[in-house]
């Protein structure tokens, strides 16, 4: 086990990916059980998982994947269509696998029982085996790949060329056991074939073939004008070939047409997404480039998909530890400090020879900074991709017909934001499915289509990303909310309908009468709101009865760069994140009132506790102007008392490390253009600390 420990991280990362692929493919297969290329992908992923688990010595996982693979194998030859029961069973297996993987991750090995599942899988295996035996008596197995395994693109090529007098052959080649340099041998064979035609598909993929990564045999699809006999002749001339089998491929015409239509639909889809991406563009130059980057990214990912389906594994990305990126970022920031110092020195010397290269350095460092920020971006897809499965399960559980529509999944956000986004989104989507979308009967009675729609949309707007979770369900009734609020003793006097709806973000508020399995435990929307706020974002709700509800989340593109208000306290300058600031007011001494132990400020007729930041930080304040920064935490306001306002600025956050990281008063530090280091105040901490003080 020790030997494998260094692969653990990679193992988990890859396993997660494969499980995700399995989930996605399985969903697709459920919609289209005849899609054999998806089934193949599922099979391959399961197979790879098994191999990985076995290599790591995780026996339970190996056992389960093995059984699963065997069951999938049954459906792979295309003779038996996969049933929804089997798909559900495989889903169950996947869930169990995730459990096992989590278990292993926490270093509790093999504690999960899989007997029930292996039992179920065995039953399927037994049943099927006897079935197929009965059906296939006397039928011999043909070549290794059958026409059903040919993927869509290849089918299209085959069909197109068939009309022009080309033949397609499915060729399986077995090399002699003693064959050396198998890769070169395969290359020789392909090369020879390509002299008179075209090899459009190989199994394994061409790179694997050329690297010699295969057992003694491989198969390929070959398009040529030659006849079977001629092809045979070409291959016979090559030495070290043990056997060759050549099959003429003839595809069903009707199938071919379908394929083409499918492909067309796909391109239309792609266009739509790019249009979406464009709609989000804003005029600033930065955004334009972003848009282009997005578009190319789209293309790239499309290409990737194509490549994937063709079985070529061209790696265009590498994995990087996020800590290294943080490190990179820090180093770049440090570079900026020294650049600034150099610039100051150069300014004093005033040497032209020095100034010119310095300007270059300045440009490069800021490019570097931009670059590292971009590297940290991740498409929201990373969180979105788990939702189709969730909706599937929810619709079964709730017996509703729900379709999840995802738009703009390629929109990018800072990695940290993306990874924190999962939880609140799960909550919102659950709510939409549970409370939003009505039951089938209700929908029909209202004259709505039986199928409800939950929509997840993401797009970039300026330097914010907007994510909208909406449903076409019953919407939120202000009356019910009003009733519920009164019952819970929440003061609703003077609230209009819009404000009433906002009450759902209020702590302890839930409109569902009974707690369901899915959601509605009374905690929830306020937690969602807090989470979004802590990410520097905001959440709003729009609802219309019987039309549906939309939650609009606005998030900053990145957590590393924030807009902040620069303030001075005494001789020091501090930064306050703009996101949490509600309002800034100038106060006269007399406006700060004393309650028995605290100071308060009257804001909108409410008493707001005042925190003297200088006292908190034990620094001397000046006696001149005073300003109160009003911040909103949850639904309470606090006022931070500072001296002067210096202006608004975009700053890059640098985390404090070592002993400094224990300083709860600060979020981090930033380096200004002149090389000056400024601390960023953690406003929420300053206010909460105060609460503790009061109790103590």
């Amino acid at each position: 086990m020790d030997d494998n420990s260094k692969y653990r991280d990679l193992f988990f990362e890859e396993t997660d990916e494969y499980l995700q692929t399995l989930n996605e493919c399985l969903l697709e297969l459920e919609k289209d059980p005849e899609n054999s290329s998806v089934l193949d992908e599922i099979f391959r992923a399961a197979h790879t998982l098994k191999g990985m688990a076995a290599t790591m010595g995780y026996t339970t996982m190996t056992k389960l994947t093995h059984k699963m693979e065997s069951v999938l194998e049954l459906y792979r030859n295309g003779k038996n269509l996969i049933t929804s029961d089997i798909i559900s069973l495989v889903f169950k297996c996947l869930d169990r696998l995730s459990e096992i993987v989590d278990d292993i991750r926490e270093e509790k090995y093999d504690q999960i029982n899989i007997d029930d599942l292996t039992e179920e899988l065995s039953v399927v295996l037994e049943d099927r085996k006897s079935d197929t035996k009965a059906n296939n008596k006397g039928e011999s197995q043909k070549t290794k790949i059958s026409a059903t395994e040919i993927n869509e693109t290849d089918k299209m090529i085959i069909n197109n060329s068939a009309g022009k007098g080309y033949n397609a052959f499915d060729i399986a080649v077995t090399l002699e056991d003693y064959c050396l340099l198998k890769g070169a041998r395969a290359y020789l064979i392909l090369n020879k074939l390509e002299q008179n035609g075209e090899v459009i598909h190989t199994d394994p993929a061409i790179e694997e073939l050329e690297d010699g990564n295969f057992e003694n045999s491989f198969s390929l699809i070959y398009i040529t004008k030659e006849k079977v006999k001629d092809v045979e002749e070409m291959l016979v001339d090559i030495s070290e070939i043990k056997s060759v089998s050549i099959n003429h491929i003839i595809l069903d015409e009707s199938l071919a047409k379908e394929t083409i239509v499918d492909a067309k639909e796909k391109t239309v889809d792609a266009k739509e997404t790019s249009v979406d991406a464009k709609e989000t563009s804003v005029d600033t130059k930065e955004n334009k480039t972003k848009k282009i980057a997005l578009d190319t990214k789209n293309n790239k990912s499309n290409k990737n998909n194509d490549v994937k389906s063709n079985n070529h594994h061209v790696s265009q990305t590498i994995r990087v530890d996020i800590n290294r990126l943080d490190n990179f970022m820090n180093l770049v920031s440090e570079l900026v400090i020294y650049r600034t110092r150099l610039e100051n020195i150069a300014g004093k010397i005033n040497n032209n020879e020095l100034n010119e290269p310095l300007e270059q350095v300045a440009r490069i460092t800021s490019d570097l900074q931009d670059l590292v920020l971009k590297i940290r971006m991740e498409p929201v897809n990373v969180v979105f991709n788990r939702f189709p499965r969730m909706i599937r399960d929810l619709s079964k559980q709730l017996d509703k017909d729900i379709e999840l529509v995802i738009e703009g999944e390629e929109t990018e956000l800072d990695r940290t934001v993306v990874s924190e986004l999962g939880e609140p989104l799960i909550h919102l989507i659950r709510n939409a499915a549970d409370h939003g979308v009505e039951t089938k009967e209700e929908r029909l009675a209202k004259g709505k289509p039986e199928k409800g729609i939950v929509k997840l949309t993401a797009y970039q707007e300026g330097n914010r990303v907007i994510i909208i979770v909406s449903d076409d369900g019953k919407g939120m009734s202000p009356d019910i909310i009003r009733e519920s609020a009164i019952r819970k003793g929440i003061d609703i006097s003077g609230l209009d309908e819009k404000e009433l709806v906002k009450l759902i973000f209020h702590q302890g508020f839930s409109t569902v009468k009974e707690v369901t399995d899915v959601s509605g435990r009374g905690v929830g929307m306020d937690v969602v709101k807090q989470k979004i706020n802590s990410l520097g974002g905001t959440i709003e709700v729009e609802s219309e009865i019987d039309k549906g509800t939309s939650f609009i989340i606005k998030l900053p593109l990145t957590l590393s760069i924030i807009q902040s208000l620069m303030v001075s306290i005494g001789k020091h300058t501090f930064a306050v994140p703009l996101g949490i600031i509600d309002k800034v007011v100038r106060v006269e001494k007399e406006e700060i009132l004393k309650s028995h132990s605290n100071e308060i400020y009257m804001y909108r007729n409410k008493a707001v506790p005042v925190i003297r930041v200088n006292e908190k930080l034990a620094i001397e304040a000046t006696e001149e102007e005073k300003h109160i920064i009003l911040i909103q935490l949850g639904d309470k306001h606090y006022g931070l008392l500072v001296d002067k306002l210096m202006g608004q600025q975009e700053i890059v956050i640098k985390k404090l490390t070592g002993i400094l990281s224990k300083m709860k008063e600060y979020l981090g530090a930033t380096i200004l253009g002149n090389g000056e280091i400024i601390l960023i105040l953690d406003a929420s901490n300053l206010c909460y600390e105060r609460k503790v003080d009061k109790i103590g």
Partner: protein
Amino acid sequence: MSKRVLIVDDAIFMRMKLKDILEKNGFEVVAEAQNGQEAVEKYKAEKPDLVTMDITMPEMDGVSALKEIKKIKEDAKVVMCSAMGQQAMVMEAIQAGAVDFIVKPFESERVIQSLNKAIR
């Protein structure tokens, strides 16, 4: 009539070994060359039916020699001789028109099989 072969290899030992194998199996070795340059000259002079070409040689390597020979006679039959681990070179040679390749250490049977196929 027996087929006329040109053996190209920088090691005398390898040439002897190959010559031995070929002659026992009814080939006629009409010339030997110890580098690519020599191989091209001998090819021009002898016009053999077949060439066995080592890949790594001084002066001119086997792949370049192959290309030169192909310029002289487009359908010249050249079988590359390679050691393990020269896959990239072999592929380049195939690209350049080598009919086959054999991998060292040589085994008579395989060499003969390959040459027979190459010559057909």
